[in-house]
C-alpha cells in the first residue's frame, strides 16, 4: 500500500516544488504568449523579411527537442560567459520553445477569420496595423482560446524538464525526496497527483470550451 507518511513528512518540499512549477509555467506562459504573438504576426506579415524570420523560427524550434533548447540556455550560454540560475534558464528555454507552438496556434486563429473582415476594415480607412489590432486580433483570440489551453497544459507538463537541470520544480523535489527516503514508487505517485491537480482541471475546462465553440458554429 501507499505510505502517506512520506507525503506529510516532506510536505514542505512537495509544496515548494509545486509552487515553483506553477511559477515557471505562468511566467513561461506570459512570455511565450507575447513572443508567440509577435512571431505569428511576422509569419502573416506582407513584409517578406519578417515573414521569413517568423517561418524560420517556428519551423526550426518546433522540430527540435525541448530539452535541447533548455540545455542551450543552461549549458550553452555559460560557454559564452553568461551564467543563469537553473530556474531562469529553464523558464527561458520553456518560453522560447512554447512560443513557436503558440505562434502557430495564433496564426491559425488569425487565418480562420474570413478575408472580407480585413478588406472591409482596410476600405473603411483603417491602416493594416489598426485593422489587425482592432478587427482581426480580438476575433482571433476567441477561436484561439481552446488550443491555447492545450498549449498551457503542455507547458505545465513540459516544465518538468526543469528537474533535469536542478530547477527546483516539482520533478526535482520528487527526485530529491525519493533519493532521501529510498522510496521511489510512492513518491512518484504523489508527484503525479500534484501534476494532475494542475493539468486535469485545465484539461476538463478546455474540453468544455471546445464543445461550446463547436456548438456555437
Amino acid at each position: 500500500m501507499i505510505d502517506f507518511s512520506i507525503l506529510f513528512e516532506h510536505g514542505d518540499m512537495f509544496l515548494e516544488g509545486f509552487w515553483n512549477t506553477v511559477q515557471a509555467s505562468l511566467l513561461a506562459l506570459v512570455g511565450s504568449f507575447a513572443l508567440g504573438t509577435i512571431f505569428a504576426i511576422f509569419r502573416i506579415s506582407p513584409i517578406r523579411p519578417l515573414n521569413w524570420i517568423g517561418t524560420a523560427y517556428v519551423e526550426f524550434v518546433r522540430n527540435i527537442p525541448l530539452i535541447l533548447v533548455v540545455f542551450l540556455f543552461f549549458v550553452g550560454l555559460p560557454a559564452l560567459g553568461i551564467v543563469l540560475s537553473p530556474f531562469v534558464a529553464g523558464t527561458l528555454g520553456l518560453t522560447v520553445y512554447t512560443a513557436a507552438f503558440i505562434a502557430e496556434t495564433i496564426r491559425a486563429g488569425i487565418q480562420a477569420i474570413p478575408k472580407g473582415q480585413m478588406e472591409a476594415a482596410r476600405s473603411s480607412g483603417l491602416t493594416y496595423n489598426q485593422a489587425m489590432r482592432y478587427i482581426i486580433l480580438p476575433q482571433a483570440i476567441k477561436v484561439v482560446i481552446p488550443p491555447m489551453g492545450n498549449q498551457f497544459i503542455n507547458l505545465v507538463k513540459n516544465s518538468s524538464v526543469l528537474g533535469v537541470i536542478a530547477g527546483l520544480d516539482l520533478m526535482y523535489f520528487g527526485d530529491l525526496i525519493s533519493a532521501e527516503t529510498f522510496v521511489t514508487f510512492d513518491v512518484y505517485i504523489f508527484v503525479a497527483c500534484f501534476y494532475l491537480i494542475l493539468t486535469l482541471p485545465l484539461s476538463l475546462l478546455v474540453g468544455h470550451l471546445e464543445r461550446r465553440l463547436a456548438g456555437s458554429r
Partner: protein
Amino acid sequence: MDFIGAYAPSHLTFLLEGFWITLQVAFLSIVFSFAIAIVVGVLRYAKIPVVSQVLATAVELIRNLPLLLIIFFTYFALPEVGIKLDKFYAAVLALVIFEAAMLSEIVRSGLKSVEKGQIEAARSSGLTYVQTLWHIVLPQALRRMVPPIVSQFISLLKDTSLAVVIALPELMNHAQIINGRNVNYVIPIFLLVAVMYFVVNYGLSIVSKRLENKHA
C-alpha cells in the same frame, strides 16, 4: 568556440551512434504505441460499457502527466515492485505508455469524424458491426488521421531525448559527453545536434504535407 575540434571525425561517429539509438527507441515506440492506440481508440469508439470508461480514465490521466515522470517511473519505480527493465526498454515502455494515450485520442476523433450515413449504409448492406468498423470506418478514418499522427510521431522522436535523464546512450546523452570534454565544443555540438533532429523531423513534416495534399 572550437568548431574544428568539436566536429572531429571521432565525435561525429559518436553522435551518429547516439542518433542510431534515438532512432531505434523512436521506431519501436512508434510501432507499439500505434498498435495499442488503434485498439484503445476503437474500443472507446465502440462504447463498450465499463471497458470504454476505464480506458477513457486511463488515457485522461496519462495524457495529463509529464512524460519525464513516466520515464522516471518505468526506470526507478517499477524495480521496486519487481519489474526490472534496462535503460533502453524502460525508455521504450515509458514512450509507448505516453504516446499510446496521445495517439488513441487522435484515432478516436478520426473514427468519430466518419459520417454516420457510412455506418448505416454498411450495416444495412449486411455487414456486421465489426466488419463495418474494419472495412468501412477504419480505412477512411486512418486517412484523415495521417497529419495529426505524423506530428505526434515528430513529438515522439523529440521526446526520446528525455531519456537523457536515465543516461540512455542516445543522441542527447552522447552530445553531453562530448560537451563535458571541452567547454568550447558546447555551442557547435548543440548546433549540430539541433540540425540532426531538425532534418529528420522537418523531413517527416514535409512527407505529411504531401500525403495530406494527395488525400484532400
